[in-house]
């Protein structure tokens, strides 16, 4: 197979990644994330209407008359399905949902509540906290694992790649105001696992090649390793993306955000294994001595 000179573009792609990370952070800080009811508290109702009567404006108007705080209404999948979210949650009042349903039926005709989620402020705060802890914990566990398995230069590269993927994925969610809910946390954790997986495969090869070729510079060596593992990288990301695309397209509305986050994560994860993890090895001047020294100890 023809060798591709990935290493020629280390610099330019690092600059690009830097820009993307900064842009993502700017968005995350100034625009923030669009938290769903899981993390913000409030009520979510997925409803299905009779074909004839309803549109977003009508539904929003009738909800606005009920004094429920901020109301957002969105189409959900097809024309007759909508998701309504509002701040107020009053799950202690057993009639709360029933009353909304009656009022809504009066103004727009028959509705069917397909899903109701009602999350109190205490629970949403806890869910948010445990979500953040889960992500932090998984990053820490990966760090620990890679630290045990590799030399610190490799760990640093892998971890930087992980942060890169997570930050940019969240950045995309911020830019497009996509909803962050519990399943996105699951997606982010899986991204962390996948990105690590991808990096480890290349790093294993780099280390093997370091032993094999004493006099090849790390700049060249990373490129050899990337090329040797390239077909695996491509095949695996293609099969994973095929599976994810199938969820995204056919898996229903509820899994859309989840699969989208994963798709982004797999793309960034594959990219960062090549363009973040490896340049770190180059700039840390990893050589045969790095691993030989470690092994002697």
């Amino acid at each position: 197979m023809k060798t591709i000179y990935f290493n020629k573009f280390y610099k330019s792609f690092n600059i690009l990644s830097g820009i993307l990370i900064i842009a993502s952070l700017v968005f995350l800080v100034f625009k923030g994330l669009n938290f769903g009811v899981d993390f913000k508290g409030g009520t979510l109702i997925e409803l299905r209407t009779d074909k004839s009567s309803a549109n977003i404006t009508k539904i929003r108007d009738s909800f606005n008359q009920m004094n429920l705080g901020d109301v957002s209404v969105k189409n959900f999948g097809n024309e007759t399905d909508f998701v309504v979210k509002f701040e107020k949650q009053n799950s202690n009042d057993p009639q709360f949902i029933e009353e909304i349903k009656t009022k809504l039926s009066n103004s727009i005709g028959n509705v069917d509540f397909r899903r109701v989620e009602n999350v109190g402020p205490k629970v949403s705060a806890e869910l948010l906290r445990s979500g953040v802890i889960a992500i932090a914990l998984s990053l820490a566990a990966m760090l620990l694992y890679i630290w045990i398995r590799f030399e610190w230069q490799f760990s640093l590269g892998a971890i930087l790649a992980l942060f890169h993927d997570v930050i940019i994925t969240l950045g995309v969610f911020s830019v497009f105001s996509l909803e962050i809910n519990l399943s996105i946390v699951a997606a982010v954790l899986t991204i962390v696992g996948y990105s690590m997986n991808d990096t480890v495969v290349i790093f294993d090869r780099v280390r093997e090649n370091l032993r094999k070729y004493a006099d090849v510079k790390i700049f060249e060596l990373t490129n050899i390793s990337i090329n040797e593992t390239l077909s695996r990288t491509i095949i695996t990301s293609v099969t994973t993306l095929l599976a994810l695309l199938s969820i995204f397209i056919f898996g229903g509305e509820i899994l859309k955000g989840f699969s989208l986050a994963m798709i982004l994560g797999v793309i960034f994860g594959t990219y960062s294994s090549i363009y973040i993890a490896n340049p770190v090895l180059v700039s840390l001047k990893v050589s045969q001595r790095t691993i030989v020294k470690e092994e002697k100890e």
Partner: protein
Amino acid sequence: MLYFSKLRVFSVLIFTLIISYFTISNFTNVDDEFFSKNIKLGLDLQGGSYLLLEIDNEPVITQRLQSKVLEFKKFFKDKDIKVRNFVIEDKSIIFDVENSKIEDVKSLLDDDKSEINPYFQQYKSHQFNFENMDTSFKLEFSDYGLVLLKNSSLDQAIEIVRRRVDEVGTNEPNILKRGNDRILVELPGLDDPGRIKSLLGKTANLTFQFISSSSEESFGTEKLSFEDGSSEAIVSKRIVLSGDNLMDAKPTMNNQTNETVVSFSLDRVGAKKFGKATSNGVGKRLAIVLDGKIISAPEVREPIIGGNGQISGNFTFQSATDLALLLRSGALPAPLNIIEERTVGPDLGKDSINAGIMSLIIGFILVVAFMFYKYRFFGLIANLALISNLFLLVGILTLFEATLTLPGIAGIILTVGMAVDANVLIFERIKEELKNENNSIVAFDSGYTKSRTTILDANITTLIAAVILFFMGSGPIKGFSITLGVGILTTLFSVYFIARLITAYYVIKNKHKEKLI
């Protein structure tokens, strides 16, 4: 890496077949209990309600402190120690002790064998912590004392919740403790939790108290409003009878008034108390109070001696049924708040299953086709491993009766996509080995050997993520972590035992063929 003993081949086959059997058992009806296991569907797939209840322990704490104050008064009286100015303030008891006895009181409270402030050896903690300033003492629950109190009220509450849910008769409810002040209620198949919510939302403290004619009652009086909000009445604080003495309650029709009422019968103690009180109170109005609201306050026309009575109060048949149910199941020790509710209708659940299965099938076909295109014969081997992987995964989930959720299905699909990675790593490595090695058996063998650590590394990272998710996530997300985690294990099995076995047979048979892979 290519050698398999006969025993090993045999055990791999048996194991795969047995586990796969459980996969199939999901789609068949077998009478045997052990062999007819089914995967449990999560609430998001079968429809149903998830309620998280939190006990409001404040009133319990106050109640407990009040009774503790009574205990203290009696205790110190017996010990001949003068104490006064008992106040309950900010969840603590404050009182004053005569000057000469301060040290005595301290040692009584601090003693490991203290009767009044029990010491729990295993937790190294008294029930109460105390502070002493001059003659004043301040006691509050220690952390452990509070945990003990919360646990006991949680135990009581969960029992009452269970009775109420059972009485409504939903199928297979799941009622679990969460922490020390929460109860999780899962109600499969229930798409309108309104009634259950209103039943769980009531403490159902029933008392009978006389309406007070004069305000100078020895027990004191309180002002309560009627259930329908129409008016208020002054009620004696003396409790004639409480719901604890109730044996049974059911909705009935009162023939004279043609009204729906709740008839109740009392236990012996209750019947006696009730008989005595109503004998003395003929002509007075007896208020029936539920959770601090008067349901009705009929006049006592004659003593009620038999221990049977009726509660009237503008009931519909439904509300009478619910009240009777609440009275039968008993009062909660403290109010419950619903802090999280998730309800999925049955047809959304069905749609989700269909969408999930659809995307699984399509994802599977795409991956299988791609693998065949890339590797031809070895693609078939990888695909065979993939199929057995799926059977193993679903089989294990069935065997352990794990709960399958929508994200769980996503986890299976993702496993399909990622599972081929291991075989890809191996095949690519073998291709590289074949470039420098003419003996294909040696090349295959070292291809397997050299890729092994990489494959382990790669799978362990994903496994770490799955384990963390399992412990941190809840509900549907937990379902995802289970399928993802189990998927990794079945992937490794199918790659290293099934795919390698077939590869080994093939390579050994065709070792002289050019361009094996």
